[in-house]
């Protein structure tokens, strides 16, 4: 009962416990700022290794330009993850949209100003179908969007089993490859506009707040009078539109509509969004984070190509990034609650 005799033991155990707390703090810092530190680290390392090729304005613009397409589709994906759902169809939606938009403007001769809005509308419709299947039919989002995506692969084949390259109007090509304004390529502007719009929706409108509520606690959201199904459908529709934008831009860059051209964006988008969720905010999906995630992947790839890494290294890097990203995101969520 006399505390004095016990004091030494208490002090001893105090030093014994401290490392646990410190480790926790370190992990929290890593999970919150790790992605940013990683990005800066890569930039510094590449600059030291290849000062003349890496840290140049043209290369910097090149990285941004290449990231634009990924950033747009990933921002759309962010919206579905914010409401607590998944969309595995976005890569296929982008490929499908990229194919039919060229079909519209090159084969069917539709004006670009009609063909593109039409394709974006189709993207929204596909997203709405996804949302309908998930909310009303109550199919697991992974299955529903994988099914819809696979159907789109088939529809793409049915539409054209070979690339459509003939008769692509110059104004369509110029969307992505037009004369840069102030030296900045068009896709960067388009990306900034899309991301700004989504950021405003998510953070400054009641719809965005509701989306976050639905993702945070769906039952509480429902009992707060939020039309949960509609909110989710909106998120899926947005993801569809963003995928269609990416697909359209890709076709404009390639100058043709090609089957399966944009399928690979799915993995990049997921990696970027999860990396982003571990950035600054503890495991929450957000637009700025997604952009940083996209940049990390783009800088990494840029570095790989500058240093002439063998091709097989690219999928290894991509897969590793995806695993790392989801790991960091999970860590961030865990330690934010400690």
């Amino acid at each position, binding site marked *: 009962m006399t505390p004095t005799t016990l004091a030494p033991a208490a002090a001893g155990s105090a030093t014994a416990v401290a490392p646990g707390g410190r480790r926790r703090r370190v992990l929290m810092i890593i999970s919150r700022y790790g992605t940013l530190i990683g990005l800066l680290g890569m930039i510094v390392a590449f600059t030291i290794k290849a000062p003349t090729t890496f840290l140049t304005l043209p290369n910097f613009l090149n990285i941004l330009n290449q990231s634009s397409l990924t950033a747009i589709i990933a921002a759309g994906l962010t919206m579905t993850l914010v409401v607590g759902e998944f969309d595995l169809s976005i890569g296929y939606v982008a490929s499908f949209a990229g194919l039919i938009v060229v079909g519209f403007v090159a084969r069917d001769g539709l004006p670009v100003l009609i063909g593109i809005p039409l394709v974006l509308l189709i993207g929204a419709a596909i997203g709405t179908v996804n949302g309908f299947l998930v909310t009303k039919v109550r199919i697991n989002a992974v299955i529903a969007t994988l099914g819809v995506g696979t159907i789109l692969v088939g529809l793409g084949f049915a539409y054209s089993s070979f690339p459509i390259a003939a008769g692509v109007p110059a104004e369509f090509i110029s969307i992505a490859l037009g004369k840069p304004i102030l030296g900045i390529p068009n896709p960067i502007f388009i990306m900034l506009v899309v991301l700004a719009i989504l950021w405003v929706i998510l953070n400054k409108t009641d719809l965005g707040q*509701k989306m976050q509520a639905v993702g945070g606690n769906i039952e509480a959201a429902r*009992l707060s009078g939020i039309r949960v199904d509609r909110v989710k459908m909106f998120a899926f529709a947005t993801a569809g539109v963003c995928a269609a934008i990416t697909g359209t831009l890709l076709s404009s860059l390639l100058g043709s509509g090609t089957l399966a051209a944009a399928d690979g964006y799915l993995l990049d988008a997921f990696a970027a969004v999860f990396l982003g969720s571990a950035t600054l905010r503890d495991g929450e999906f957000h637009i700025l984070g997604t952009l940083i995630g996209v940049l990390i992947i783009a800088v990494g790839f840029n570095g790989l190509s500058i240093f002439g890494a063998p091709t097989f290294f690219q999928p290894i890097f991509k897969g590793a990034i995806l695993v790392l990203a989801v790991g960091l995101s999970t860590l961030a969520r865990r330690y934010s609650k400690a």
Partner: protein
Amino acid sequence: MQSEPTAWLQVRQFSKHFGGARALSEVDLDIHRGEVHGLVGANGAGKSTLIRSLAGVITPDSGTVTIDGVETRIARPSDAEAAGLAFIHQELNLVPHFTSVQNILLGAPKAKRFGMVDWKTSRRVATEAAERIGVQFPLDRRVDELSVAERWLVMISKALARNATMIAMDEPTASLSDAESHQLFTVVRDLAADGVAILYVSHRLDEVLDLSDRITVFRDGRVTETAVRGDLDKRGLIRAIVGREVAAATRPEAKVVDRVDPIFEAKSVSRGTAVKDVSFQLYKGEVLGLGGLVGAGRTEVARLAFGADKIEGGHFELQGKAVAPNSVPLAVANGIGLVPEERRSEGLMLDKSVAYNMNIAVLESLRSIPGLPFLSSAKGRVRAQGLVDQLSIKTSSINERIGGLSGGNQQKALLARWLTPNIKVLFLDEPSRGVDIGARQEIHAAIRQLADDGIGAIVISSDVEELAVLCDRVVVLCEGVVSGEIVGDEITEQKIIELSYAHIDPQGENE
């Protein structure tokens, strides 16, 4: 105290901080074998931090544990188990589709024969543990087919199968009926007589006083009182918990309510077997209670009025006009709100801020320009801050994560969510469950204020005392049917309990 033998378990100088907040401060605690040790204190007083430290779920910043004379380090749950400490939480960590035997043996070292699990011996261990506390039901039934009381017995058997010397129980009677509670008390006493130490955590002070050999009271992370049986009565215990004298619960001055035009009315409302032909009126200025046992149809009625479930018969009338709330948004638009029973799972976005959680149901009214979907952060801030001040919600700022607040303050924030100019009727389902006494009184005051402001408040509670001290009128449900209505001074705990059992057992099985 000096003459006491050395305790089996000695906690010395436990301290723990979360961020800047002190959760435990130099806490000493002695637990003897064979005693029931009551642990009481307001929410956030430190009880659960202490328990979680002993369970190895969190690590205290400093302090020691000595068990049976040996200083023991509890860094993880397996250390606690090895030391003979078992913990039963309200949520009862059972695998629902496993049988009782499987659950009892889950994770326990099993007897082996030739390197294979010897199920026969293992089974005997489980059966012996269950028999020790007089389990009557067959152990081969799946746990999800058992009642809550039976699940508690499975959890206790599980602890005994691991040779636990101390079992900590967190709010064991929260979901039990009176008869079931008494059955559990018998088990607790028998275990103590058998040399097991029971650490009994509860807000139900009568129970704690009745059962405990010793009681330790926590306040603000410190032990403020350690009393031996007979030292304290309920009043003294409350004083130790709150740190000030609390007036004995009394009914408020009977309010003269003009019971002419109801602002809200249920007319022969039905849904399946849960709600059968339920009618009641709510008049302006009164707090209406919905009483009855858990499962009597109270929550179900609220969910029907709120549009969360589909109504199958009858209708509701709001200020004389029939409303058919077939969706929550419609009910909200009509001015009906619901503070749900399960605060964390149905009410809060735990990771979001206090302001966010308060404003989420009224976002349309916080737009910068009506008609455009853009929010005014200033309007949101002003509303949240106003409500925080009005209900004296304790939070460092409206931007704090709501998950970090105490239960009482979370509850107040949920209530605040519905305080809009549009609100007409607010259902509050178990508004003070798991909330400490001080917060409870503040919540009650807030509910009374609602009624005084002309908002219809309907309180659902399993706590008959709460209904008795808070409500102007109580409608009691029993098996989905209204079994009685009591007004003003007729409202006593006794009367509510009688009506709650009105249909089940006319002879009155409850003691």
